[in-house]
């Protein structure tokens, strides 16, 4: 074989390998992500009570309760949420509306509705709400990262698939997410959320799976702050209920009139 023939042969091999690598079908990462979303989120509008217990340096420092009303948008498929602060007393009645990248905060004391930036919303505990009530498949593109055994939230070894999610919509709250799901049933086990500057924002364990609204769903999330690992939030979900959330409620002008049962 002459030199130029050998070169052509090697080039052909290389191109073939590249083509093969590109054409390798992913084990349907996006479908796994959708299945994982469906484990966390009921398929119809629903309400849930969220209790957040906050720890700093191992000591319980704060407890708050939120009522969350979620409904998916027929257009985008993404969840819109109306969060009502129930406790502590100083925050009672305050509302947070999330509709895509529109965030409105309403304070009944001043009767004022204020638009917030995503960064501003991250300041409050309400931001943790979307760790659960969000359809990741709508805002992120998934790739299969790794098949591995990991310890789940109960320290049980589980065969898992790590999905590497990258933001594909301007509404995505995080730049990148690593999500470990059970390889057998796509139950979310653990996730890491990253900012645009590749800073780890939070690590979340999904656990306490219980039958809720027709499916085994996680009812407890353990959230570890990315910057301060001694800041841990335990988020518990209770009182799941299918509940109609009228479209007209999900806007700034309705917030002063919102008074759930």
């Amino acid at each position, binding site marked *: 074989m002459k030199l130029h023939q050998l070169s052509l042969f090697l080039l052909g091999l290389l191109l073939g390998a590249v083509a093969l690598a590109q054409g390798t079908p992913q084990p349907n990462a996006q479908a796994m992500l959708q299945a994982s979303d469906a484990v966390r989120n009921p398929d119809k509008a629903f309400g849930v009570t969220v209790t957040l217990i906050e720890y700093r340096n191992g000591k319980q420092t704060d407890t708050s309760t939120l009522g969350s009303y979620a409904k998916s948008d027929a257009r985008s498929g993404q969840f819109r949420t109306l969060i009502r602060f129930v406790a502590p007393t100083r925050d009672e009645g305050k509302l947070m509306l999330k509709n895509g*990248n529109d965030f409105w905060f309403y304070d009944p*004391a001043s009767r004022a509705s204020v638009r917030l930036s995503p*960064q501003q919303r991250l*300041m409050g505990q309400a931001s943790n709400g979307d760790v659960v009530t969000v359809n990741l498949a709508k805002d992120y593109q998934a790739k299969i990262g790794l098949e591995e055994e990991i310890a789940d939230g109960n320290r049980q070894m589980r065969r898992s698939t790590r999905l590497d999610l990258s933001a594909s919509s301007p509404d995505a709250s995080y730049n990148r997410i690593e999500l470990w799901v059970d390889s057998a049933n796509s139950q979310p086990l653990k996730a890491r959320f990253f900012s645009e500057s590749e800073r780890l924002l939070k690590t979340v364990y999904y656990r306490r799976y219980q039958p809720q609204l027709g499916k085994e769903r996680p009812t407890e999330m353990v959230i570890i702050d990315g910057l301060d690992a001694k800041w841990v939030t335990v988020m*518990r979900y209770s009182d799941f209920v299918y509940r109609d959330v009228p479209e*007209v409620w999900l806007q*700034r*002008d309705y917030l002063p009139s919102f008074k759930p049962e």
Partner: protein
Amino acid sequence: MYIKQATALLTIALCAPAFAADAIEDDALNLADTTTETAPVTPSSWRLFSETTAGRTTVHQWGLPDTTEDTQRLSLDLLVDKRLSPEVRAVFSDRLDLNHQSDALGQKTLNSVKEAYLSWQPQNDRVLDVGRINVRYGAAMGYNPTDFFREGANRAITSFDPNAIRENRMGTVMLRGQTLWQGGALTAIVAPKVADAPNTGDWNADLGATNNRNRWLVSVSHQLADNFNPQLVLYGDQRQPVQMGLNLAMLVNDATVAHVEWSGGRQKSLLAQALPLSQAVSQDETFRNRLATGLTYTTASKLSITGEYHYNGAAVDKAVWNALRTSSMLDYTSYRELVDEQLDLTTRQAAFLRASWQDAFINRLDLTAMLRYNLDDHSKLSWLEARYRFEKSEVALQWVMASGDDSSDFGAMAQRRYIQALFRYYF
């Protein structure tokens, strides 16, 4: 041998962060395991808090040397918001301020009936409210040209923080109807005249302060595109032609929201309103604009900074302001009283800066700083607060300083400086 050792060390070095992360996560999960079940919390239909303050104020009165006096205040603030039936809701809100202070600083006892109304929602997209309602329009923070029902609404100013001023004010007696559709709403308000003039009686509901003439308002908003949801307002007042207003808040990037609030319409200047009989002041109604626009930027460390530019086309400009300050004391006082009552800008232009830092240095400690700067006479008002939140209470330290010439916008304030400690308790 060396290669083996080096390989082992490298392996340890590479794996150490992973082990550390695992240990951290294990600790967190152990902590979560110890979390006991919390008792269910149900939404309450009322909220009551008391606020006690003690402070020292430098009292400034024109032509007299400054004096210092100690002040104390006890306030009770109640809000009841109860659903009477699936369709009817009752709201009542009241604030009582008991002040221990000299007459120069204001009334000693003041009760403000902030809200008292019934709300009927026969269907999801229709709401009808009747009673005294605190209606607040405005996208801006430091000055709200479209907040048409702000005039005369504050019986007592217990804080210079714009949020507190809004919280402590009285609503207006009105009939309000609202119809909603997906992404939009139309609101109509009729606020009739109920009394001729304000009543300063300690316990008076003071309907004359908020309902001393017939007024109406119509507002419409609609989500025209993602990130574009303008609100248009029309406001009618028997004292002047119809005024228009616009509110718009848009996301600039992940950390920044820009806002514009504008109102405009034909009306007399504020000076003409204050001095209706003066031959030297034109009583013409011309188109006048008011504007508040700015940005709010939030850092990753929970620091939020708002900067705003304020413009009031109905207020006196720099030249007239300087002339007014040095001419008739009576005219000057009349003008100031009118501007204070309307919570309007004293002169044509101002700047506003507010920074709030949540969980500053330590968890639960909030620091807030505010600066109002009059761009025409260069007087300023600075306000600082440190507030620590406990489970059912809050303690705060507040400091205020007004600076500028005696007759300037902020230099003329009676409370030139004050420092006060505050304790709030939620029952």
